[in-house]
């Protein structure tokens, strides 16, 4: 059973409940700092470039990208998988820790969930736009029609992809939103602005904070959490079947579902780390997001990184052990050595080796190193998808088809655009939504003090 004694205080500063509300809500009522506007402007510019790229893609055709007959998927699928991966962490973080009753999650989960929603929206754009005829995307959904009826192909991983991603988006967005209801009510009740009261009041759904409501609320959180927990595993498993169900060397592999889920959580946690370090620094949330929080995430990353390294090595071993000449070629002559060796080794170092630095407490407590490593992991995970997609496709079975792939500015623009969209969303989140779940933090703020001892699990146990 969990014991806070081991972990120590979950938030610093010995704040009163009112103070907690005030501190967390401060950015919403405070004057918006200049850096926010600059960052927002940059994000919007990136977003505009992305919008233009999408426009070009839709009007000119997928030909404006760098794909060809041999490499039919490129950056768009890399980015899709990457964003989906990032979009995992929020929910994974929140839910697994919720289910495991890890109370320290409270300071971070809100940000993580917000990030999830934004990342999944970014991710969903890619498969949508990458279709040759995006305007017919609804054909991927099974709906009764007058064509016979002509159903979708239930064998296709892409169909399940659509199902999984859209469900995941729905569930994670609801999970995030319902988690915010009590906090919206708090803002409604504390703010002086009439407009804010009306708007937040609308979103607060008339929350009064009665114990019945809390009861329902907790129940809902667990139900949604339960569904989402399954989805976290299923979404990336399904995304992985996009590759695992293919016959391309380097794709056709049973390790993919767990490997992808773990990889997704890895990249997501890295992104959480990036975000919370920013929150810590930019909004001075040090009291709520303590060094212990960062420390805990880093420890998890060490663990996942080990799994990643194992997975990489397993893949390589299996390629050799299977004796398939195509697999051997892809792994040994096109990844470890060959044209894509740089990308492979950077991926390996960033994902499997660099996080091992987190064994050292010094590293874990140096916020700058943590930030740098979290960025490296994000790059490494991007490279992982690059390696999987590009190396397998460029050189597969018939050497006559081997072709190179280089992204065009339109593809790069699209990617940058989603980053812009993501950062804009995050910035809006910083500004308009309580960055930390106030009510949850309040629940744990007095956890270690005497009068709350009886709340502690195990308090009544015989020891």
């Amino acid at each position, binding site marked *: 059973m969990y014991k806070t004694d081991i972990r120590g205080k979950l938030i610093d500063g010995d704040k009163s409940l009112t103070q907690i509300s005030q501190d967390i809500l401060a950015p919403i009522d405070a004057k918006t700092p200049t850096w926010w506007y600059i960052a927002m402007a940059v994000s919007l510019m990136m977003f505009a470039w992305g919008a233009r790229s999408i426009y070009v893609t839709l009007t000119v055709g997928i030909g404006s990208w760098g794909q060809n007959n041999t490499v039919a998927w490129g950056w768009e699928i890399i980015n899709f998988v990457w964003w989906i991966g990032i979009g995992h962490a929020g929910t994974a973080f929140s839910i697994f820790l919720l289910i495991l009753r890890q109370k320290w999650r409270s300071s971070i989960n809100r940000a993580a969930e917000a990030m999830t929603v934004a990342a999944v929206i970014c991710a969903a754009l890619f498969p949508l736009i990458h279709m040759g005829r995006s305007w017919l995307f609804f054909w991927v959904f099974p709906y009764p*029609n*007058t*064509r*016979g*009826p*002509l159903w979708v192909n239930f064998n296709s991983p892409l169909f399940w992809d659509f199902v999984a991603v859209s469900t995941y988006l729905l569930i994670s967005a609801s999970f995030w939103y319902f988690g915010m209801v009590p906090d919206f009510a708090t803002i409604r009740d504390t703010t002086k602005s009439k407009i804010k009261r009306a708007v937040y009041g*609308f979103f607060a759904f008339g929350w009064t904070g009665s114990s019945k409501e809390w009861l329902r609320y907790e129940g809902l959180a667990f139900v949604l959490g339960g569904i989402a927990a399954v989805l976290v595993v299923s979404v990336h498993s399904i995304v992985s079947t996009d590759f695992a169900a293919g016959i391309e060397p380097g794709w056709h592999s049973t390790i993919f579902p767990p490997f992808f889920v773990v990889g997704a959580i890895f990249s997501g946690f890295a992104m959480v780390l990036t975000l919370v370090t920013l929150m810590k620094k930019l909004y001075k949330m040090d009291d709520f997001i303590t060094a212990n929080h960062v420390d805990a995430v880093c420890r998890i990353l060490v663990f996942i990184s080990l799994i990643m390294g194992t997975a990489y090595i397993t893949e390589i071993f299996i390629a050799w052990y299977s004796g398939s000449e195509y697999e051997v070629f892809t792994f040994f002559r096109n990844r470890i050595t060959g044209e894509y060796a740089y990308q492979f080794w950077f991926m390996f170092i960033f994902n499997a080796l660099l996080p091992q630095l987190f064994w050292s407490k010094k590293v874990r407590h140096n916020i700058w190193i943590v930030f740098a490593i979290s960025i490296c992991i994000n790059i490494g995970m991007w490279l992982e998808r690059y390696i999987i997609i590009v190396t397998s496709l460029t050189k597969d079975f018939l050497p006559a088809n081997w072709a190179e792939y280089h992204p065009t500015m339109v593809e790069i623009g699209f990617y940058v655009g989603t980053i812009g969209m993501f950062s804009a969303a995050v910035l809006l989140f910083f500004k308009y939504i309580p960055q930390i779940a106030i009510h949850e933090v309040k629940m744990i703020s007095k956890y270690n003090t005497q009068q709350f001892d009886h709340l502690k699990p195990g308090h009544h146990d015989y020891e």
Partner: protein
Amino acid sequence: MRNVILPGRYTLLLKLYIARVLVFILLISGIPLMAISSNEDVKAVKENPSHNDLQRGERFFKGLLPKDRTFESCVSCHILSKPDTMNWNPSAMDIALKYVGKDFADFQTAVMQPSGKKIEASHKDFKIEDEDLKKVKMYLDELASTGPPAAGPTINQLANFVLLIVLMILALLDLIFFHKIKYRLITVLILMGSLGFQVKMITEAAIGLGRSKDYAPDQPIKFSHKVHAGDNRIDCKYCHHTAEFSKSAGIPAMELCMNCHALVREGSRSGKFEIAKVLEANETKKPVVWVRVHNLPDYVFFSHAQHVGIAKVDCNKCHGPVKEMDIMRQHSDLSMGWCINCHRETKVNFKDNAYYDSYLKLHDQLKSGKLDTVRAVNIGANDCARCHY
């Protein structure tokens, strides 16, 4: 125009509907104004004949003149706008087009000393001064180049749709902020009802995309399948004779029409007027440009030979009661589901056609009783590549 029919007891909805219609009338009242101004532009371009002449010609045509008229007005038979039902008399536009290139004498002869039985009967009491008849011709010539007067505007689907959206917003605002309506149920019902109608409209529009069931366009000649295939019992394949062996059923060449119409020069319905078009086409060697009624998309390859020649499907099965159609219209929706369902049901004449001898497995199954009949779907009629390639 699609009227939204609502149960009477929801008076509020009814009121709103009336309000919607009023708003819409207001909105569209600008259109005729614009139309009038553009009409004047056209007239300004034309120098002669004078406006007065035209007006006078129009009045004669429409029966406002002469004052002591005892005979039918021209317009009572030769109507100006497109009617919803078949009108066998040549329309004003038809006549206008026919005589636009001819001089007055021809026109006069046709009107005053008609040669056909039918036209003779209706024109026999005609009394009109030559001068006035000239003006009628002027009016008709003008008509030929300006086209028939625009039909009244129809309320289009989009307006309905937008109105429903407005209704929904109003209901929502009321529900959340104003609380003007006492019973919440009403607003909720408005919301759900509007949404329901919108979904219905979208679905119908989506299903109708690219389909045109009951499409019955105007044809250059008022050719009646009822008269030919029904009353006169001409076999479909007499005219559409390539249906049995070609993909296309074929629209008969003009020479084929002339097989009969070399002799048959006056019909029971339109008299000579329509048949004259056939004769003229034959004489001028200028083919008649029909409007296609059954249009399949470019990516659908349908073969009449397969269905008529091989499967011996009756023409009516797809084209409907052609023998009763004065105006040819698209009977079936020609959707993919319609094709596929028929393939699922249709039995194949499996034993009599030696082609199917190569289907050894199916013959075995028939013999062993595993399969009682072979249907089109069993021999791959529903494969994509049967129709899409």
